[in-house]
């Protein structure tokens, strides 16, 4: 291996030192001169009319600078929050898009809905004054459950959707699917809930907005995954501000998992208010606010059917899903249960016919949007629970039924729009089976039985579509934005390099991984490359980080810019070495004239570009700085096989994960250490969904029952095991790095593997997530009875 090839090496992270020593700069660490503090007054009711808001008492409280309500926002003609994806109903009509005001307009629709903002000299004063704001509500009946919301006589949230239905959307040939079912040898049917989750990044959302009268410009510091998208949505759709007058900075961000993709009401209100009070306005969510108002995830109710022939080959799949989108459409809410869900229902299999229908429903709950995996965990859960259940019903080995149906020829066109470029599903499954010692499972099960414990084994073979997306395809499916990425490579005169990327890192380690890519290509040290992200004032443009797209799209944009750097470097080197450009080779950081010992190191060429004394100025501009935009030609398709082994104590209902094996195919891997870390984190979020996490609203009052860390169970260290991790590398065929993305896989594959293992242990057909000790105990003891 070349001394400067860092691809595939577990380089220690460049970002770690600052985080380990307390030198990170998160949004709440940003203090601006003369800053004020905001407290949002939120609805205590799930559904109510606002009769009156009296500010007088609160305005007189010490330190109060200003109070704004929905009336002030309306008078200033501040727009509502937009939804970035248009879904078309099966009847051809556009989805229902009710207004999404940044402060409530006459009505509140979920507990935590934004009613007013109190701005004061200190946060304590803002909170004290908020307590004095007099708000008179007429409480209305609330509905939190999607199927109840569709029933006759249910409370109506929005006038434009009298049946609370946002859209009914379908994909696939229903008649052909129905026909396949009619002639099937066996049909497996399951009905299940994909539980609502609350993302809970440990850093709460935060923002600090500043306005400058001198040039009428704004700066917004915000915990966000895509600062350019935040700016675009806010300037073009909500506040009508000139885009070049707004700088959005997303500094160190303490985890996102999707919840920091969106343009939130608070961000808009603070930016608008900063001009009104002519001082910076800062807000950091309390955890209770995070629970109430961060976009939630999942919340599907699904009836799924799989038709099989006598040999267990899949003939067709029929899936009917009701998706709860909450009270308003969050930024990408509409595409998650449709485009990012139903298109993944082929899984790793050759199922020739698939029909899926999704009904999206408004309820008096927090908006639901993309959360780690976003649609793909829900799809994987449908497919892999069906497949495992079918295998048991037909007395086939769960691994065998999968092998009989694996896709083996690529590219493969699924019946649900996607075309997989490459994959090797049998190999990941074989490796997972070996690593998990499936052969030894019967012995372990028998040993556990002697101790009165129930052991079970479950598989999940997931696929995901990452690297979202070719813009033209996304556009044809309803996306209201492009989905490319931008990168800039700035070579300094000394040959050191600063790279600007539109991807945002909030734990993923881009500052290291991207530097490895750049250093390898330019033949320089990783330390000689710095990655800059998260600032619209520095980075040329970007679509941000979500859908495991950073390396596949953002990384490729950087590679494209590097191509231009090397191409220009060859021209400069040809001049310096008095050779023909065609004869110049570039390897290991040195430009050489092929077949000679004449050479010019990268740093010499860089210097020549900035000190152009001996330089072809008649043909070439000085300087060495290039940028590129990259729009992918297809999604990438990471896939993997997970094997989970659990042991249940039927006395207590407690579940112990005794072995969890994950073998993933992420294509080419740049930094194995970072990739494994992404898998670990994803697995635990998926295990959280399957075992411990559930967002619960009271069905009568609409109050959020799981509104704190004491009530909502984010997995702790002793809830989860260590993992056995393996990887297969089937390079992606359509990007130069051969990469696919790895950020969400763990959360996508693990819930199905875990519930498959638990149902195996308990000998039951189904078990609702989260499989709490209570549910597990009931299942274990119902069977015994």
């Amino acid at each position, binding site marked *: 291996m070349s001394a400067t090839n860092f691809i595939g090496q577990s380089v220690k992270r460049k970002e*770690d*030192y600052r985080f*380990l020593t*307390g030198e990170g700069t998160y949004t709440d660490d940003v203090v601006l001169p003369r800053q004020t503090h905001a407290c949002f007054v939120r609805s205590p009711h799930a559904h109510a009319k606002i009769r009156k808001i009296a500010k007088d008492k609160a305005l007189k409280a010490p330190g109060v600078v200003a109070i704004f309500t929905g009336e002030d926002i309306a008078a200033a003609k501040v727009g509502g929050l937009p939804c970035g994806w248009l879904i078309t109903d099966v009847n051809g009509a556009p989805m229902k898009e009710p207004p999404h005001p940044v402060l409530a307009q006459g009505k509140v629709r979920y507990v935590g809905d934004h009613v007013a903002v109190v701005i004061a000299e200190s946060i304590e004063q803002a909170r004290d004054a908020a307590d004095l704001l007099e708000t008179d509500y007429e409480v209305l009946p609330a509905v939190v459950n999607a199927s109840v919301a569709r029933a006759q006589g249910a409370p109506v949230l929005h006038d434009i959707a009298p049946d609370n239905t946002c859209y009914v959307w379908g994909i696939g040939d229903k008649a052909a699917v129905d026909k396949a079912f009619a002639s099937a040898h066996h049909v497996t049917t399951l009905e299940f809930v994909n539980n609502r989750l609350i993302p809970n990044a440990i*850093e709460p959302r935060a923002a600090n907005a500043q306005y400058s009268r001198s040039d009428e410009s704004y700066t917004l510091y915000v915990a966000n995954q895509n600062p350019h998208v935040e700016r675009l949505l806010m300037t073009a759709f909500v506040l009508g501000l000139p885009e070049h007058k707004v700088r959005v900075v997303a500094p160190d961000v303490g985890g996102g998992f999707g919840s920091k993709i969106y343009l939130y009401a608070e961000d808009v209100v603070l930016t608008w208010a900063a001009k009104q009070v002519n001082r910076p306005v800062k807000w950091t969510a309390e*955890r209770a606010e995070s629970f109430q108002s961060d976009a939630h995830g999942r919340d599907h109710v699904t009836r799924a059917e799989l038709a099989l022939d006598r040999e267990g080959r899949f003939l067709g799949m029929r899936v009917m899903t009701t998706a709860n989108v909450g009270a308003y459409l969050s930024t990408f809410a509409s595409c998650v249960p449709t485009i990012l869900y139903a298109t993944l229902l082929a899984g790793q299999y050759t199922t020739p016919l698939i029909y899926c229908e999704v009904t999206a429903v408004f309820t008096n709950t927090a908006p639901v949007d993309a959360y780690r995996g976003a649609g793909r965990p829900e799809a994987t859960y449908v497919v892999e629970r069906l497949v495992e259940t079918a295998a048991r019903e037909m007395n086939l080995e769960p691994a065998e039924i999968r092998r009989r149906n694996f896709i083996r020829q690529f590219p493969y066109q699924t019946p649900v729009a996607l075309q997989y470029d490459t994959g090797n599903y049998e190999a990941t499954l074989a490796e997972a089976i070996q690593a998990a010692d499936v052969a030894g499972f019967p012995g372990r099960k028998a040993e556990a039985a002697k101790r009165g414990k129930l052991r079970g084994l479950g598989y999940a073979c997931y696929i995901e579509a990452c690297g979202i997306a070719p813009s033209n395809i996304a556009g044809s499916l309803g996306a209201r934005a492009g989905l490319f990425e931008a990168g800039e490579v700035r070579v300094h005169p000394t040959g050191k390099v600063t790279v600007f990327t539109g991807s945002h890192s909030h734990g*993923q380690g881009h500052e290291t991984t991207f530097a490895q890519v750049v250093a390898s290509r330019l033949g320089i040290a990783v330390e000689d490359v710095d990655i800059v992200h998260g600032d619209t004032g520095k980075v040329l443009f970007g679509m941000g980080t979500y859908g495991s797209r950073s390396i596949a799209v953002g990384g490729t944009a950087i590679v494209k810019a590097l191509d231009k750097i090397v191409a220009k470097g060859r021209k400069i080197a040809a001049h310096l070495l008095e050779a023909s450009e065609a004869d110049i080779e570039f390897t290991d950081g040195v430009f050489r004239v092929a077949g000679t010992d004449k050479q010019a190191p990268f740093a010499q060429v860089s210097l020549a570009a900035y000190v152009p004394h001996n330089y072809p100025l008649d043909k070439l501009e000085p300087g060495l700085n290039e940028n590129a935009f990259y729009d992918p030609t297809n999604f990438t398709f990471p896939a993997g096989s997970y094997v989970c082994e659990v042991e249940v104590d039927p006395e207590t209902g407690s579940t112990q994960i005794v072995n969890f094996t994950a073998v993933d195919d992420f294509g080419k891997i740049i930094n194995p250490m*970072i990739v494994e870390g992404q898998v670990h984190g994803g697995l635990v979020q998926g295990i959280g969904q399957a075992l411990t996490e559930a967002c619960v609203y009271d069905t009568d009052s609409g109050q959020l029952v799981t509104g704190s860390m004491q009530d909502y169970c984010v997995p702790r260290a002793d809830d989860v095991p260590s993992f056995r991790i393996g990887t297969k590398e089937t390079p992606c065929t359509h990007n130069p790095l051969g990469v696919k993305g790895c950020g969400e896989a763990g959360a996508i594959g693990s819930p199905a593997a875990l519930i498959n293992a638990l149902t195996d242990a308990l000998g039951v057909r189904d078990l609702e997530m989260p499989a709490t000790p209570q549910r597990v105990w009931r299942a274990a003891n119902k069977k015994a009875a």
Partner: protein
Amino acid sequence: MTVKVSMSVNGKPVSGEVEERTLLVSFIRETLRLTGTHVGCDTAQCGACTVVMDGRAVKSCNMLAMQAEGAELVTIEGIAEPDGTLHPMQEAFRQHHGLQCGFCTPGMVISAIDLLKNTPNPTEREIREQLDGNLCRCTGYHNIVKAIAAAAQTGGGVLRR
């Protein structure tokens, strides 16, 4: 009503006028501007606010600044050597990729040092059980557990101050 509080933080005497209701974490972050100590949950569940007080790891979001009157505190800014050399626990987290977004990390590192002080050679089970007061949403704990086990061999339980 404000009160004066005085304490030692990272070996230096500090004092400040605070409201009686001011939390210790607010005093550390807002008054002293030591922003490495984080607030994640406000309810003493996540541990991002963990600091060392008189030799014990405590959650600074769960006590008043007044309660630390006269105490000796060490925050994440005081863990490494004065020349910037990382503490063995910090180094172990770096070597084993025990951090991703970094937000829980200061509290996690301080709790981990305390863990090894109390249990010098912990088993994996003991590490996991004693990490119960610190939440991490990124790493899945796998590499944090590895880092702490490794730091047990390199003096990770000894605090310089």
